[in-house]
């Protein structure tokens, strides 16, 4: 229904059709005479006015919809056609034909409104949005497509999607395209290559677009998921890694949630329980292992869950199987985690070690544990008892450096060191010193200890006090030596008895028998008597000699030693022979340090020098004046006393074995009993020394007396 109205030049209504009542609620007379503009919406007055101004030029003006105030106060949309009829003498105004288009205007608004929504959805979408036609070429794209692909609107427009998709992803893209053309909206992940050649992983949601029942194309929303994927992959990797780490813990491990259900179970724990992991996860530990409810473990779990602090402890279980476990329980955000180590064997070993070390500490033998450099790490009480050192002062020291002393055999010490280096078990006997300086003989038995890689980790030495045994051995040796000497003496004694002692006895016996038979007043009788007397005298002399020799032997070893000035003794002997020496025109060279003092027996030294000088005088060479050299010098062990002459000398081949024997004589032309050198030798031996002789016929004789270590003061 149209409304016909006329307005005059000033814009006032001069005629209004009856339909105004229906359309606007006004009666025609209410409007006539009123200014038409008063009813137009202020926003649109200008627009309408501008169009109306064209009227003088144009005969007709169409005025698109504008709002007009109705009687009820509501705005109605009107669309008008204004016709200039001012010059028509019948009308004399502008004819306005209005139509109420309120309903249509409303519809148009809604459409715009919706379109705006869709536009916004398309263009303002935070992701890249595009449309593709049925051939698969891009039609419309929003701004984010540029940032996603690197191509601008123009470049994308008309570009087939295949050009954008990475070759390895094309198959997936084509499948998705076919699927959406079949009307199925869905999402797909593909890989694209940007204008810069960078690959991006994109999640695309595609949906078919229909218009009036016809498939027009495809609209898609693409999202760059490269980062998301990467992050997700990273998270997965980390999760895997974490899992691997947890699995790699060879000791049992599990996590419980706040309902005491297993959330994670390591393979080691599953095997400890003899169950499959899947059997455990999700189960409540107290239902699975009810026997734990009475355990300390249970209390500790509650404690950790409540106080959120980590706890370590050990517990011995008797069931289901006897074992000792060392637990670590720590809180997690949603429960607790339990890690434990089966220390049953370790504990057993520890107990065994405890027992062993108890034994080691109680044994009377010394036990020493050393590091590979032979530094003491531990010693038992036995060692402390044997050496007098306490444990603290020996730790870190080397037993050899600490225990060996001046009389320790250097050779044996070196051997021991060598054997340590060889890293093989060995045993040895060695003289050691206690802390007090007291000597103690040790039998040491050393065992090197190696770890599973054959690295030397320790030496263990067992030390046994064998002092008594060693002393017994020493005594035995001395006894053997004494026996040997006594045996030798006995042999000589037998010889003396059978010859030197028996000879005068035999003579005396024979003479006694003879005297019995002879007539008393004969010359022979007197001679026989005289000889009997002589025989008995010589018997006495032999007995005296023997007594002398035997007393030297017995007392030499036991007599206390005194400090003897050798030079002084020598001078006294020379004084004794003064007359004889000067009579022989002898020259005596003495080279003895006047300060030299020997730990010896003065009488023996005197007797030795006396005998040797007496011999030198007795056996001097007629052809040359006698020269005697007496020297004393320090040697390796003690002192060497030398008496050398230039006398007649002896053939060593002939005499060497008999020179020092009793009643042996080598100079038939000179008187002598054959006891001098025997006495010298006896005295030298009684002093713990040795005598050697070197001689050459017509050159001279040199006696060398080695006075042993005991002579050193």
């Amino acid at each position: 229904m149209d409304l016909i109205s006329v307005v005059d030049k000033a814009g006032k209504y001069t005629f209004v059709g009856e339909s105004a009542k229906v359309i606007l609620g006004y009666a025609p007379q209410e409007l006539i005479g009123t200014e038409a503009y008063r009813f137009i919406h202020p926003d649109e007055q200008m627009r309408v006015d501008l169009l109306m101004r064209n009227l003088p030029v144009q005969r007709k003006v169409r005025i698109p919809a504008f709002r007009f105030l109705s009687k009820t106060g509501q705005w109605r949309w009107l669309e008008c056609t204004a016709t200039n009829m001012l010059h028509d003498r019948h009308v004399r105004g502008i004819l306005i034909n209005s139509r109420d288009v309120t309903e249509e205007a409303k519809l148009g608004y809604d459409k715009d409104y919706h379109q705006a929504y869709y536009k916004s959805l398309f263009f303002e979408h935070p992701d890249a949005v595009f449309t593709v036609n049925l051939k698969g070429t891009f039609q419309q794209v929003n701004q984010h497509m540029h940032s996603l692909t690197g191509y601008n609107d123009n470049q994308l427009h008309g570009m087939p999607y295949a050009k954008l998709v990475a070759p390895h992803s094309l198959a997936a893209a084509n499948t998705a395209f076919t699927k959406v053309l079949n009307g199925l909206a869905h999402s797909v992940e593909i890989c694209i290559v940007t204008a810069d050649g960078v690959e991006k992983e994109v999640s695309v949601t595609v949906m078919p677009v229909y218009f009036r029942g016809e498939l027009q194309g495809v609209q898609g929303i693409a999202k760059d998921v490269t980062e998301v994927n990467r992050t997700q992959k990273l998270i997965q990797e980390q999760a895997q890694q974490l899992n691997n780490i947890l699995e790699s813990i060879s000791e049992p491990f599990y996590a419980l949630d706040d309902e005491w259900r297993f959330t994670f179970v390591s393979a080691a724990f599953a095997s400890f329980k003899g169950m499959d992991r899947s059997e455990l996860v999700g189960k409540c530990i107290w239902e699975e292992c009810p026997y734990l409810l009475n355990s300390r473990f249970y209390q500790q779990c509650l404690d950790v869950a409540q106080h959120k602090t980590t706890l370590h402890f050990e517990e011995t279980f008797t069931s289901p199987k006897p074992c000792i476990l060392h637990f670590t329980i720590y809180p997690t955000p949603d429960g607790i985690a339990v890690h434990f180590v089966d220390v049953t064997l370790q504990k057993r070993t520890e107990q065994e070690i405890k027992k062993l070390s108890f034994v080691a500490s109680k044994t009377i033998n010394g036990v020493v544990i050393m590091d590979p450099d032979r530094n003491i790490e531990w010693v038992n009480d036995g060692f402390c008892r044997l050496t007098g050192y306490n444990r603290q002062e020996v730790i870190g020291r080397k037993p050899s450096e600490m225990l060996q002393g001046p009389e320790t055999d250097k050779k044996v010490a070196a051997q021991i060191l060598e054997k340590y280096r060889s890293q093989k078990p060995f045993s040895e006997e060695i003289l050691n010193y206690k802390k007090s300086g007291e000597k103690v003989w040790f039998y040491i038995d050393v065992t090197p200890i190696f770890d599973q890689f054959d690295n030397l980790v320790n030496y263990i030495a067992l030390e046994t006090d064998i002092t008594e045994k060693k002393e017994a051995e020493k005594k035995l040796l001395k006894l053997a030596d004494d026996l040997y000497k006594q045996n030798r003496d006995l042999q000589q004694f037998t010889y003396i008895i059978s010859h030197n002692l028996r000879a005068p006895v035999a003579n005396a016996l024979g003479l006694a028998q003879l005297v019995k038979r002879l007539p008393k007043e004969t010359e022979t009788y007197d001679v026989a008597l005289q000889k009997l007397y002589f025989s008995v005298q010589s018997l006495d002399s032999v007995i005296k000699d023997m007594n002398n020799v035997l007393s030297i032997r017995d007392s030499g070893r036991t007599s206390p030693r005194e400090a003897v000035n050798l030079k002084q003794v020598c001078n006294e002997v020379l004084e004794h022979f003064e007359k004889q020496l000067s009579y022989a025109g002898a020259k005596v060279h003495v080279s003895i340090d006047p300060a030299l003092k020997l730990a010896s027996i003065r009488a023996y030294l005197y007797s030795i020098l006396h005998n040797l000088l007496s011999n030198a005088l007795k056996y001097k060479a007629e052809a040359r004046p006698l020269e005697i050299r007496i020297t004393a010098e320090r040697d390796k062990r003690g002192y060497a006393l030398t008496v050398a002459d230039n006398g007649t000398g002896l053939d060593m081949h002939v005499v060497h074995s008999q020179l020092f024997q009793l009643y042996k004589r080598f100079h038939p032309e000179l008187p002598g009993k054959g006891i001098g050198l025997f006495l010298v030798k006896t005295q030298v031996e009684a002093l713990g020394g040795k005598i050697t002789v070197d001689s050459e016929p017509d050159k001279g004789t040199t006696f060398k007396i080695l006075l042993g270590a005991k002579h050193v003061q």
Partner: protein
Amino acid sequence: MFNKVYIVDDDEVSIFLTEALLEADNFASECRAFLDAQQALQMLLQSATGTAPDTLPDVIFLDLNMPFISGWDFLDALAPYEQALKNQCRIYILTSSVDEQERLRANETSLVSGFLQKPLEDQCLTLLKESCSGTLY
């Protein structure tokens, strides 16, 4: 009765005693004593090799314990002439020694005809004469 007897002994008393006993027993017509064994050895070696006019003695009394040259040394020195001596000359060891070892050693020495102990006794001389008579006379 023997023709010639040597006594080798360094002990003067022992020689005196032996000589006295031999004389009392009419043991030999000639008795010669040597204080020095070396001298006796020289005489014997000369007789054995025929370089001296003296004949070998029938009997030698040899002491063992002598200085410079013992009875054993003496026997060792005679050993090379054993064949020459054996049938003409009997060597008896006459010693004061009571050492059993020496008696055994004497038994093993082929040159030695007997081991006598000082002092020499009458019975011993008689036995000697008897044992010799079988071979010498």
